[in-house]
């Protein structure tokens, strides 16, 4: 095409004069470069993509992960290492269904559960069957993939939301079936009811049983790396591109003569297969399965993993799984709350650093919070000493500072709940106001956050983490639907 020609010369803004004019071939070709490049995480994500080729990222992750057992003790390796790897695997499977093909599958966790239960039936004391892993894992993976295929059949007819519902119900039905229905097979409850199935064999590598945590960790790491490599090539393949086209616009994809139904079923089967694999590993590592492991909270966690890192990005899933699982384990009830506290305040400050500009404003806000805190504490103490007489839960080294700064009442049972509800209202109000008022409101809100943490969340860390995950999903969806490393979707005008 000749430049100039029929299209009249339109003087753009000074910085746009050098770019190709709207509509010409060069303009169309440079669409990637024109995508909105926001500051902060978005640009960081783009840079990681540009600077490090996929194999380098894989190498960094692999080397880091492989050396983990050398400096971590057994308990930590189980909680932080093995669980992160399982979340990565689950996230990768869900990423195929949701991230690549754009199908909202809310029964995913049931497929994970099916894999775990099936593996448990094939290799445990429950029926006395002990198949070696080399046989049972492929059998489980293939049958989970087939189940995913069956579950995906309605998706041929259903629009996005109906699919979500059918799968959500499938997930719920699975839990009810395992827990309550528990049909009797060969004189025994098939699924063990609420007790689940115990004494499951560990995975074995062609007869060599992986019993120590280190061996298991390295085995799972190997599986994860293989799946990562496989998915990378899959996503670059013809099928991967077709899936993304399907996600962006199913109608247009169909009009381009793509076999939409077959692609959907393929995505379901692939995701389900990976979920089944994760189930085998999970059952073998835990040596017991119960229905509680496959209920709604886990589904939310897997979604948080995929969405945080960025829907459709493999690096994103790995990073998301690490972030989610580490914060998840920090907030575990059996973990000393001191660590969780440091993490919490660190995250709050990190968010402030990202959100508050210019830099001196950050100083004003943080200083304001500290001063506000001491003032509020002094006033509360002056009114009635019982308002500040409460004890800090597992304060550790920070206990003294916290009890002088945060209002922790003794008695006054309603205080924690009132503070929590006020915090929700304050945060919602913060999103609606702008300018100086926002900065001014930010100070008491931050102080309130500290109060809520010290009075409610520390006492019930297990509940607090679900609340934070729920809030994370909503916030991410409204602020940055593509996640940290995902690419923003093309706006169709």
């Amino acid at each position, binding site marked *: 095409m000749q430049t100039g020609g029929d299209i009249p010369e339109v003087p753009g803004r000074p910085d746009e004069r050098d770019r190709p004019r709207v509509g010409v071939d060069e303009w169309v070709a440079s669409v990637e470069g024109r995508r909105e490049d926001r500051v902060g995480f978005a640009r960081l994500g783009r840079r990681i993509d540009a600077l490090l080729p996929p194999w380098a990222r894989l190498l960094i992750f692999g080397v880091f992960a492989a050396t983990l057992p050398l400096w971590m003790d057994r308990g930590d390796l189980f909680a932080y290492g093995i669980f992160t790897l399982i979340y990565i695997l689950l996230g990768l499977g869900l990423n195929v269904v*949701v991230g690549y093909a*754009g199908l*909202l599958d*809310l029964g995913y966790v049931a497929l994970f559960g099916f894999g775990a239960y099936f593996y448990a039936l094939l290799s445990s004391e429950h029926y006395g069957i002990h198949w070696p892993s080399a046989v049972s894992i492929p059998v489980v993976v293939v049958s989970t993939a087939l189940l995913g295929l069956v579950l995906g059949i*309605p998706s041929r*007819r*259903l*629009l*996005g*939301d*109906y699919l*979500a*519902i*059918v799968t*959500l*119900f*499938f997930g*719920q*039905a699975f839990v*009810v*079936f395992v827990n*309550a*229905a528990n049909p009797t097979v060969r004189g025994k409850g098939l699924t063990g009811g609420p007790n689940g199935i115990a004494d499951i064999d560990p995975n074995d590598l062609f007869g060599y049983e992986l019993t120590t945590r280190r061996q298991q960790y390295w085995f799972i790491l190997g599986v994860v790396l293989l799946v990562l490599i496989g998915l990378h090539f899959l996503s670059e393949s013809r099928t991967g591109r077709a899936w993304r086209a399907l996600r962006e616009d199913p*109608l247009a994809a169909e009009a381009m003569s793509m076999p939409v139904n077959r692609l959907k079923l393929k995505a379901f089967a692939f995701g389900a297969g990976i979920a089944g694999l994760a189930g085998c590993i999970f059952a073998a590592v835990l040596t017991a399965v119960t229905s509680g492991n496959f209920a*709604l*909270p886990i589904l*939310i966690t897997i*979604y948080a993993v995929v*969405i945080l890192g960025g829907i459709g990005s493999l690096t994103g899933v790995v990073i998301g799984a690490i972030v989610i699982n580490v914060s998840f384990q920090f907030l575990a009830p059996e973990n000393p709350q001191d660590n969780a506290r440091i993490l919490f305040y660190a995250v709050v400050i990190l968010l402030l650093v990202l959100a508050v500009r210019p830099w001196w404003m950050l100083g004003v806000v943080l200083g304001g919070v500290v001063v506000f805190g001491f003032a509020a504490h002094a006033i509360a103490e002056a009114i009635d000493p019982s308002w500040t007489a409460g004890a800090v839960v597992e304060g550790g080294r920070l206990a003294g500072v916290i009890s002088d700064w945060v209002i922790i009442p003794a008695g006054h049972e309603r205080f924690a*709940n009132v503070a*929590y*509800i006020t915090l*929700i209202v304050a945060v*919602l109000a913060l*999103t609606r106001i702008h300018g100086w008022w926002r900065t001014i409101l930010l100070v008491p809100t931050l102080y309130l956050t500290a109060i809520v943490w010290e009075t*409610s969340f520390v006492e*019930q860390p297990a*509940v*607090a983490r*679900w*609340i934070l*995950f*729920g*809030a*994370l*999903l*909503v916030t991410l*969806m*409204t602020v940055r*639907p593509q996640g940290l490393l995902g690419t923003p*979707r093309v706006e169709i005008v």
Partner: protein
Amino acid sequence: MIVAFNAELFIQLLVNGITLGSLYGLIALGYSMVYGILKLLNFAHGDVYMIGAFVGYGVLSLLGGPLSPNISLAPLIVLMFLAAMIASGLLGVVIERFAYRPLRDAPRIAPLISALGVSFFLQNSALLVFGSQFRSYDSFVLGSKNPEFFEPGPLTDPVFVIKHVNVQLIQVIVLATTAGLMVALTVLVAKTHLGKAMRATSYDREAAAMMGIDTDRVIASTFFIGSLLAGAAGVMFGLLFSQVFHFMGFLAGLKGFTAAVVGGIGSIPGAMLGGLLVGLAESFAAGYLGGRWSDLTVFGILILVLLIRPSGLLGTRAIQKV
């Protein structure tokens, strides 16, 4: 399990099923209205219902608690309903404003995930604030003269008897309130200005906006009305089954949704019909197959309906425009 036909059991199950069904119908209306107008599955709807039940409990304890209420029974129940309905309605508006409105033009998967997050957030907030124990409305002794001797209160009085089966006052209250609310809603949608705006918005949001309808306000009103009905259903649940807890919204939400889909999502009479069907199915499955099968029966019905007639019994087939 085969049970010889027993008329008494059958009528008992029928009465229970209809009461339960009217409750599900109310929840289904909220789903159906929101879906009709936004094409959004509001997963958080069940949790709005749960919050409504807790607000009803809060009013009850503020006024002296179930065992010794300060005011007489009729105004107490009216107050509980009003407080729960208004609080749930406002909650629905807040959810819409902060979790769904920013996503109006986002890809369809985004508001669904956001809704999931809201549901999870509400559920666990309730767990944090109210704790995991069951709270009881004590409807058995509510309004009784001697609650400490477990003398039954007026809510359990039989209003009429069919073949030795008592239909209790509370069941009549639930049925009457549901019927009243549904008539009011039908009139609102069919006759008023707001109803006309709602119908227009659900037909074509952009065209409605071009005709001068403030669609954001219409959507907010839809959320208010739908959530209000859920709040009423929450109090009804508390009065019928006497216990409220943080997780009650999830299953009730699923069943309300089933009712909406079975009846034909987006259709108001469909939601009522679907609610009755789901309530009856659950009641009969629990009576004849055993309680553990009742949930599975309901889910089975949903999946069957979706596979055979995705638009539901009274729904119209959606035409997909390109």
